């Protein structure tokens, strides 16, 4: 969906006309011409995270970047940092841009929308238009839509500016141990929340089975801490209960009727879930905890991007290489028993989940147009590289989707068309040897595709604005939930405290003209 100043239809027209007129395989003519015409000594400096799938960085650094660099004659430097340090570095670089100085990098890939940096970055609207219009003979059909999730995460309706360019998002599915859940279902006679393929489908299923699972020594684990995963899953719970921090117009609603009751309900639910089905480790959660605790065998359930499943696959593959018997090997059986749910678990209002990370590149507005053009060309090609056939034709290895092992999902919905995504997930090359050795089905992660329907963004149903970003980065929501779960605050008090902080943050950003809404 396109929510910019022009309508989507206009773009489709443009796309159609462009494709017809050009006819030959040309990728984004505009930037290409500018970049290659005066290439030579340009250096493009990119800062991004250490990808949770290490193989992705190998591909990005050693395949995509060198090939791209060669093609355009642009020197590219890529620096990686841990995700937790990105905001601090971005802040320091923004301060330099504001002072008219060299920021140190030309663009940064953020993992949550960097709305607060809007004044220091270029308007990415043109880049988005160009990308929507990009075609490639190896990928019949256009790019499709810039999905709503991405649009709301990068567009500021108050200023009309795209402060970022989302190249991907990572779905945040719920992982569960099928063997443990089957046993829990056996113990609960009436429990029908575990399905052969679908897994637990409602939050009340999770609570009911979670009680039994904890007695079995395998609690469920959803973070209640100051870190990314907690921020995400707790918002998923709020959304599924029909409440949110703000509405479509950036008014703070979480403590206002009719949402107040819903927020209090979900606070009470999480308290109950903690008391009956979780364990104190959830208050010490770090970005690595769900993986570590799940992989150490403690958890029966965790929410995370598919990297948990991928680690179980790597461990199983290693066990197979060592010659372990697939039927008895703990590592192999662990991988076989690790499933992801068919969709986001449902609350009383809906089944809503979140993106796990929102990949948003933003280009500093340094005035250096040659570098800015190169950066835009780079991003356009990065999105093009999603498609394995395009990547092959261009010499970009397996492409972004396959290199990330299905972790990076496209925000331009047909950058890799659904059919090709499913083709990969149904015959998953990573899981294939395990499936073959154990007789398990090969489409272990196919359910992740459903995220295209259920994944929502931080700030839903409104835009991911600067106030939302600050609320997110200062962990007000996890702190609110944790204080209630620990019994330190009554739900009402925790909510009022959080809402007060949130409102003062919104008001501050409204005064600066970056955020809409009035209450």
């Amino acid at each position, binding site marked *: 969906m396109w929510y910019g100043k022009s309508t989507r239809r206009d773009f489709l027209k443009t796309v159609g006309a462009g494709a017809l007129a050009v006819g030959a395989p040309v990728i984004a003519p505009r930037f290409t011409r500018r970049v290659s015409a005066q290439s030579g000594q340009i250096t493009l400096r990119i800062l991004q995270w250490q990808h949770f799938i290490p193989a992705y960085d190998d591909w990005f650094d050693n395949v995509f970047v060198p090939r791209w660099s060669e093609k355009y004659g642009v020197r590219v430097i890529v620096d990686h940092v841990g995700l937790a340090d990105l905001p601090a570095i971005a802040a320091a670089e923004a301060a*330099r841009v504001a002072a008219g100085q060299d920021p140190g990098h030309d663009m940064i890939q953020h993992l949550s929308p960097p709305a607060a940096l809007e004044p220091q970055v270029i308007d990415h609207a043109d880049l988005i238009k160009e990308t929507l219009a990009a075609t490639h003979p190896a990928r019949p059909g256009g790019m499709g839509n810039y999905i709503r999730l991405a649009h709301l995460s990068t567009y500021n309706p108050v200023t009309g500016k795209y402060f970022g360019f989302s190249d991907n998002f990572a779905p945040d599915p719920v992982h569960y141990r099928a063997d443990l859940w089957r046993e829990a279902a056996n113990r609960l006679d009436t429990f029908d929340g575990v399905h052969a393929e679908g897994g637990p489908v409602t939050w009340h299923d999770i609570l009911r089975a979670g009680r039994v699972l904890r007695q079995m020594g395998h609690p469920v684990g959803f973070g209640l801490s100051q870190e990314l995963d907690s921020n995400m899953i707790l918002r998923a719970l709020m959304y599924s209960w029909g409440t949110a921090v703000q509405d479509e117009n950036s008014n703070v609603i979480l403590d206002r009727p009719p949402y107040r009751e819903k927020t209090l309900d979900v606070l009470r639910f999480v308290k109950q879930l903690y008391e009956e089905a979780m364990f104190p480790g959830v208050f010490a959660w770090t970005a690595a905890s769900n993986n*570590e605790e799940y*992989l150490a065998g403690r958890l029966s359930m965790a929410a995370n991007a598919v990297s948990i499943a991928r680690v179980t696959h790597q461990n199983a593959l290693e066990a197979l290489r060592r010659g372990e018997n697939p039927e008895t090997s703990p590592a192999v059986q662990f991988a076989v028993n690790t499933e992801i749910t068919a969709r986001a678990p449902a609350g009383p209002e809906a089944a809503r989940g979140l993106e796990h990370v929102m990949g948003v590149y933003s280009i500093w507005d340094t005035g250096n147009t040659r570098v800015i053009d190169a950066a835009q060309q780079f991003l356009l090609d990065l999105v093009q590289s999603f498609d394995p056939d395009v990547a092959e034709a261009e010499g970009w290895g397996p492409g972004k989707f396959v290199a990330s092992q299905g972790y990076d999902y496209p925000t331009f919905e047909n950058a890799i068309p659904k059919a090709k995504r499913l083709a990969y997930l149904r015959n998953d090359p990573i899981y294939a040897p395990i499936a073959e050795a154990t007789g398990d089905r090969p489409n272990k992660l196919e359910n992740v595709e459903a995220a295209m329907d259920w994944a929502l963004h931080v700030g839903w149903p409104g835009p991911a604005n600067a106030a939302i970003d600050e609320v997110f980065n200062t962990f007000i929501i996890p702190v609110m939930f944790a204080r209630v779960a620990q019994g330190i605050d009554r739900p009402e008090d925790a909510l009022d405290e959080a809402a007060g902080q949130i409102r003062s943050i919104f008001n501050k950003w409204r005064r600066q003209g970056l955020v809409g809404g009035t209450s």
Partner: protein
Amino acid sequence: MTASTGALLRKAGLRTGHAALLSAFVVFTATPFAWMLITAFKRDSDLYNPNNNPLWFNEPPTLAHWDYVLNRTPFVQWLANTALVGLAVIVITLLLAVPAAYALSRLLGSWGERLGIAIFLVYLVPPTLLFIPMARVISSLGLQNTLWSLIVVYPTITVPFSTWLLMGFFKSIPRDLEEAALIDGCSRLGAMARVVLPLVVPGLITVVIFSFTLSAQEFIYGLTFVTSTAVKTVSVGVPQDMVRGDIFFWGPLMASAFTASVPVAVLYYLVLDRFVQGFTTAGAFK
């Protein structure tokens, strides 16, 4: 029981108690390092099995983590960067702090004393207060994302402290020595260089060590000013770049943390006596 055996027993008891006490302290200080070392050699499958004895190799040890650290991360580069920054900071610190301390303790009378305390107080301004405005200064000097940014900024911590420290050393040297040199026709600076400086060598060594370890330890400025992997120091590079993936890579993390800690510790240890001497002769306290 005779008095002498009683005394012997008491002595033996005291010695055992003494040994036990010291052992307890050593266990407290050294256990994290011991565990770092063990972790660095353990296989992941051993490490992440909660039933295994964490202090024992339940599976054969492995060099995989070291291979990863040395060959797949820029760890060696970070060590080199740390050494380079440390050396440069030492030079700058000495160039600024030695003359300043000499002036404050010898040439400026009671004003020197007061100014010395004022300069020392600068040492108490924490980096967390300064690093945002400092980022502006660094980039207006065009130094962001270079080792120079650290070389320029770290002396803000080392110079005030070193000046104050050296003041104590200069004061401890009898004025007569200098005056004798002056009578012999030396200039004031000549007397300082030939007579006074050799006498404060322990102080200078203290300053050198302090400056170097500070450069190796500093975290917040490093986090902010240097973002390129190639120009990081050890204490920033390891926590930032080696937490790879959703999973902490505990093996490589511990391998590099251990490797970065030990050389500095050995260095310190070699000159410990003088360092301690530095503090006891220090500044306004003696």
